C-alpha cells in the first residue's frame, strides 16, 4: 500500500469527503493560505477553491454558533482551529448548543458540525498554545471526540466524522503531521468507538491516545529488549470509548499503564482507570499507573518542557514499575520531534 504523511492523509480525506458530499465546506482562520494548516487544507483549497475552503475573520465564539446554525440547516461545516486552545472561545456553542441540539430539541435532527483542532507540541509553544482539550470535550454527552494517532486513522476517522449525524471534535497533535505510514486510497470510514491493538503483548497494557501512541510503541519496543511484552492499545476515539478492548487487554495482561498528553486529574487517563476498575478489577495484579504531564501549565524553557511532556522513557519506567521490576531502562527521545527546529 502507498504511504502518506498524517497531514496528507487528512488532506486526502477532506477532498474525498467533499467530493462525495457537496454540502461539506472547510472554514477557519488561514485555511486558504500557503501554509494550509500544516498542509492539511492545501489539497482541498486547490481542488475546490475559496467557495468551499473559507478563510474567516477572527470570530471563534460566533463562528462555532454559525457552524451549528449552518449544520442544523443541512450544511456540513468542517471548522479548523490552528490551535485547539482557541476552541475555549468556541465552547459555548459547542457544548451548550451543538452537543445538546438533537436531545434538547426532541431528537428531530442534529447539528453535525465537525471541528478540527491542532494541539501544539514542542519548541516552547507554552501555556496557551499546547494544551490537549480532548478530555474537556469528552466530558459532555452529545459530542464525539476522536484523537487519531496514525495517518490511516487521521483520514478514516475524519471520513467517518463527516458522514455521521453527531458533532465531532477531531484533535490532531502537531507532532504527528510528518509521521508517514500506509493509508488506504479509498475513503474507508474508521468506526468511532473502536480501538486498535497497535502491538500485541502479554505482560502489561499501555493505553494511549494520539501522540502518546507513538511514544507507547517506542516504549514497548524498548521493553521488548528487556524481555517485557507490552500490549499497546490506541483508543482512537475517547468518546465513544472502546471499553471492551481496553478491558480485554487488561484481563489478559493484568497490568495497566495509561498515557496521555493531558493532565491526569479528571482526564482520559482517569476515565480509562475507572473503566478498568469497574469492569475487570479482579484481573489487576498491580495498581494502575498514569503517565501524564505534571500538575502545572506547560512551560516554555526547554529543560522544563522536556520534563513536562510525558514520553516513551517515562512510559517504559512506569511499565517496569507495575511489573515490580527494578531494572534501569532509558529510551532515547523521538528523533521526529527532537530534530525539529524553529522558527515556528
Amino acid at each position, binding site marked *: 500500500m502507498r504511504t502518506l504523511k498524517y497531514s496528507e492523509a487528512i488532506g486526502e480525506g477532506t477532498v474525498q469527503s467533499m467530493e462525495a458530499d457537496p454540502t461539506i465546506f472547510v472554514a477557519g482562520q488561514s485555511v486558504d493560505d500557503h501554509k494550509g494548516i500544516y498542509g492539511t487544507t492545501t489539497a482541498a483549497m486547490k481542488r475546490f477553491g475559496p467557495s468551499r475552503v473559507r478563510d474567516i475573520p477572527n470570530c471563534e465564539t460566533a463562528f462555532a454558533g454559525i457552524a451549528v446554525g449552518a449544520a442544523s440547516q443541512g450544511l456540513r461545516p468542517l471548522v479548523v482551529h490552528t490551535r485547539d486552545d482557541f476552541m475555549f472561545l468556541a465552547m459555548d456553542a459547542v457544548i451548550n448548543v451543538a452537543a445538546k441540539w438533537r436531545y434538547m430539541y426532541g431528537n428531530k435532527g442534529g447539528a453535525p458540525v465537525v471541528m478540527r483542532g491542532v494541539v501544539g507540541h514542542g519548541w516552547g509553544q*507554552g501555556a496557551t498554545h499546547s494544551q490537549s482539550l480532548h478530555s474537556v470535550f469528552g466530558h459532555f454527552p452529545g459530542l464525539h471526540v476522536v484523537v487519531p494517532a496514525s495517518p490511516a486513522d487521521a483520514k478514516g476517522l475524519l471520513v467517518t466524522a463527516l458522514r455521521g449525524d453527531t458533532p465531532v471534535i477531531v484533535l490532531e497533535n502537531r507532532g504527528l503531521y510528518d509521521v508517514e505510514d500506509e493509508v488506504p486510497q479509498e475513503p474507508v470510514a474508521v468506526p468511532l468507538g473502536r480501538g486498535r491493538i497497535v502491538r500485541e503483548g502479554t505482560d502489561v497494557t499501555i493505553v494511549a491516545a494520539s501522540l502518546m501512541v507513538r511514544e507507547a510503541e517506542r516504549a514497548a519496543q524498548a521493553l521488548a529488549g528487556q524481555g517485557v511484552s507490552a500490549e499497546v492499545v490506541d483508543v482512537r476515539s475517547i468518546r465513544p470509548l472502546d471499553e471492551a478492548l481496553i478491558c480485554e487487554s487488561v484481563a489478559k495482561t493484568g497490568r495497566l499503564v495509561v498515557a496521555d498528553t493531558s493532565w491526569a486529574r479528571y482526564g482520559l487517563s482517569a476515565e480509562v482507570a475507572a473503566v478498568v476498575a469497574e469492569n475487570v478489577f479482579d484481573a489487576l495484579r498491580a495498581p494502575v499507573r498514569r503517565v501524564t504531564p505534571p500538575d502545572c501549565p506547560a512551560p516554555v*524553557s526547554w529543560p522544563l518542557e522536556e520534563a513536562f511532556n510525558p514520553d516513551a522513557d517515562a512510559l517504559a519506567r512506569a511499565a517496569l514499575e507495575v511489573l515490580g521490576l527494578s531494572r534501569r531502562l532509558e529510551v532515547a527521545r523521538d528523533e521526529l520531534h527532537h530534530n525539529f527546529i524553529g522558527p515556528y
Partner: protein
Amino acid sequence: MTDDPEELLRAMVRIRNVEETLADVYRDEQEMRTPVHFSIGQEASAVGVCAALRRSDLVYGGHRCHAQYLAKGGDLDAMVAELYGRETGCTRGRGGSVHLIDVEAGFGAASAILGEMISVATGAAWALATAGRDDVVATFFGDGAAEEGVFHESLNFAQLHRLPVIYVCENNGYSLASPLAARQPEGTRITDWAARYGMPSVSADGNDVTAVRSAAAEAVAWCRAGRGPYFLELETYRWREHVGPHWDYDVDHRSKAEVDSWIARCPIVRATDALRPALPDIDRRRARWDTEDREELATAIKAAKASPFPAVDTLLDGAYGALGV
C-alpha cells in the same frame, strides 16, 4: 514620558536594532526555542503611545509584544533571557516570548490568545479607577483581535463604567496571511465600531511617531481626567512573517512590491528625516546609537546564555498560590 522627537527616534532605533539582531540570532542559532513574533516596522505605535504614559500607567499586549514591552521600559536583559528560556527571564522561562511581563515598568502582561488582554486591561482599568488612582491603562492589539467578541464586550463595559483604558489597535492589515478584505466588510472602519460605543475614536498614522505621540497624549488626558475609555487606531505594517525571523513576501499572500512600499514608509527613516534640519549630524548620532544598541544586546545575550535554565525540580512552582485558610 517624553515628547522630544530625538528621544522618540532613539527609542524606535533601539527597538529596531534589538529585534533585527534577535531575528538574525534566532534564525542562525536556533537556541531561542519559543515562537517569536517580531514588531519590525511597527515601532512608532509602541513608542508613540508609551511616550505619552508615565511609569505607573499600565500597558498590556498581545502576541506581538516586544516593542510595547521595551517602549514601556521593560527590562531588556529579562526579555532576552526569557527568549533563551532562562531562569533570569521575565517569567523565569515559563511564559516565553508571547507572555512577557514587567511589573516594575508597568508592562502588565501579554498573551497569545487573540484579544485576551483587551478584557484583562479593561479589568485592570476598573481596579485603578476603583482605587482612586489617576493612572491609565493602554492595551495594544491588532485589526484581527478587533473582530473578536471580547473586543466589543470590553468596549461596551468600559464605556458603561467610564474606565480609564486606551484601546490601541495596531492595524497592520493582516491576521496571519489573511488580509483585511477577507475578514471585514468593504468600507469597514474599526474606529466606527468603537465610536458606536460612545467613546472618542481617533485614527492616526501609525508610522508617524510624532502623530502617534500627539494622539496618545490626548487619549491619556481624556482617560486621566476620568472621562472614560478612548480608542486609537494606528495604521502600520509588519515587515516580517507572522511568526519567526524571516521575510515572507512572494510566498503567496503579499508581494515584495507591497512590502517595499511600506519599507519606504519606515517610521524610523521618517522620524530621522524630520529631525535632520534641526540636527544635521543625525546620521552620525544614529551610527553611535547602533553601536550602543549592538553592545547592549550583545551583553544581554551573553548574560542570558551564562544564566542557568530553570531547575527541573522547580517545574511545579507557581502553579498554585497559597491556600486561603
